[in-house]
């Protein structure tokens, strides 16, 4: 039922994106909405699994300290229990969450701006004109490095926008493309 809802939502979302999209640009190269590589889901899942293990380890340390000092009362058990339960449930639902996040994530390197879209329940679309871009970074944690993925971070003066988990070679190409479009962007102030 969820998959059917996802498929329906995806078509709705595509329709929604088309409403707000500009259409292809003149060079037709990178002006279309694109999704992330398939192995991004696996990378996200592994990242979340590691976070869950760390969270449970912290809970274990807290329990050990409390028990050793005789502080293991009702409220401590409740708080630690809730925290651990949240971490475990979060991990249990991670495959669904990852599939959801991956399905509804899109980015587009347009003629005048960079756009990203994410989410279905809370649909968010961000547009950054190139003449606002200050610099472009990449980042890669060990999990992403194992899967040969890189995150591209576009910085403006006030905030930053991420294109998560591209192929490393593709990420370099995207950085070069964005940098080139930033350099040629007109400052219509």
């Amino acid at each position, binding site marked *: 039922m969820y998959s059917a809802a996802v498929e329906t939502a995806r078509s709705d979302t595509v329709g929604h994106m088309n409403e707000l999209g500009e259409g292809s640009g003149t060079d037709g190269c990178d002006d279309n909405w694109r999704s992330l590589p398939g192995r991004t889901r696996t990378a996200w899942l592994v990242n979340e699994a590691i976070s869950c293990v760390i969270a449970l380890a912290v809970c274990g340390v807290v329990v050990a300290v409390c028990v050793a000092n005789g502080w293991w009362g009702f409220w401590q058990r409740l708080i630690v229990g809730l925290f651990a339960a949240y971490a475990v449930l979060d991990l249990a639902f991670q495959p669904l969450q990852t599939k959801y996040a991956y399905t509804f994530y899109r980015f587009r390197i347009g003629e005048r701006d960079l756009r990203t879209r994410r989410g*279905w329940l809370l649909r968010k679309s961000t547009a950054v004109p190139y003449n606002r871009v200050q610099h472009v970074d990449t980042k890669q944690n060990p999990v992403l490095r194992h899967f040969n993925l890189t995150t591209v971070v576009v910085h403006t003066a006030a905030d930053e926008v991420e294109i998560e988990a591209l192929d490393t070679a593709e990420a370099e190409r995207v950085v070069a493309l964005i940098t080139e479009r930033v350099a040629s962007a007109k400052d219509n102030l």
Partner: protein
Amino acid sequence: MGAFGTPAEARSGAHADGWRMLHPLGLLVALVQSIRAIISTFISLLVVFRLLMEGRSMSWGTWALIVAAVALTLAQPIIRWASTRYRLGVDSLQFRSGLFFRKNRTIGYGSIHAISSSSPVYMQPFGIVQLTVSAAGATDTDITLDAVPAALQLELERLRAQARTGEAITAGTTSTAVTQGSPSIAAAVPSTSSLVTPSPSQSSPVLPSDARPESNAPVFRASVRDITLFAVTDLGFIAAAFVVFGFVQNLQDMLPRDWVRTAERSVGDYVARGVISIVMLVLVCVIVLMVVSVVTSLLRFYGFEVWRRGDDLVVVRGLFTRRTTTIPVSRIQSIVVRQSLLRRPFHLCSVGLGLSSSVSGESEESGISAARILPVIGTSRVYDVLAAMLPEWDPREPGDATEPIHRTGRGLLRYYVTTPIVVALVAAAAVGTGVMVTISGAPSRWLFIVPLAIGAYWTACRALKSRTEGYAILPDRPDAFCSSDSSDSSEPLPHRILVTGAKGLTTFAMTTRRSRVQSITRSTTPWREPRGIEKAEMPLFVMNGISALRFTFLHRSDAETLDAWLTRPAAR
């Protein structure tokens, strides 16, 4: 002026190898500041020692430790003062300080963004000021000179104007397309390197500085009545209550227990007399806090004046410590006219400027001057004063018939208030149920009123937002496209937008420019999307005050208009 106060002496050593020391008064000031910084810690430690050593005498080791700590505290400002030097070089201000960790800093005259001075009452007879020279971006690129002749500020202003005029002439005679030096990037880059920061005027058209707007009188002067009105209608005095409460708590720990018990008993006896006594006590507390607020405001804002001098706004204020802050107009990212709930019935408002530099440390006073460029002013005159102060911004009143505000929240009230009402009811039910199950006692059964009260406040704020949120894209004059900054003071800056809204129960009207908006984020949900209802947020490069244009709910057509205004500007 004192021995160091003549322009000739300020200029001596300029453009030559003449490193100068700070005035000896700076040493005294640094020592006093150092003592003030550690006095509370010192007293707390004394109290702790008194309790620990009760009945015993302190060993010589403890005394040695105390003496060493005091000596170290006093030695730091002495070393700093003795090692600090500054020099007016050929094209830059140079500064060095430190004995073990040496700091060298150079700010080119053309890169100076602001020069602020403060003149405490004890420095005034000597003609000495504390000077802060700011470059673009973060405050850790500033140069602060603790005690220098007052004439040095004038000299630096002259050198800065000379450098900028020279750069403007150079820019006017070349045909290089401006990219890095364009005002949006120059204003937007939070550079930490003062040497490479381009001057904001680099891409300005060539004009001699005396052709720019000058005023022989301040464009605004706050009277004592204005400052008192500001203090009385500023809700900050309520925040002072928490500070006083914290102070009283600390005092209780230090005073003898008998005194504390006697004081508490006296208050308790007075309160026990009845409701009228409680009301009187609260009234007295409010009056005391208000008096404190008025006195503090007078100390801070007495003689408040705003001058327009060329491309700078100069703010002068302060009773005992006279502070002069220079704000380059090019640093201004937004103009915000605010009207709090207390000020609305009196038709009063306040005006603040959004700047592109962070406000901390030495630039805090500059930030305060900018945040309250007009502390309090009548709504009938505010736009006339702003037009005189910042003609290039051409500030428009939201009710202006030529450019009516398009209210984005019209017809969307239910979207604004649904969440706070539902959350308040759920929270009240949860608290009420929890209290009934866990706590016994009649008074605690009324605890559910707390989430209801918070929910009511939240609902009121949201309802106000629905009435006030809106925008007006202000028209550009055709020839204003020629340059990004208006060359003629009568031509407004291009690509301005007027945005209205509310923060809490305070309404605001903000004027900013497209170049200050960094991106746009639109969001919606599956149940709002078919009705074409969205949220929009547009972050601004503003380091103080309102840092984004936010529309809590708006129709898709409005979101498209704003998106297009930012990302698809009309071709020239």
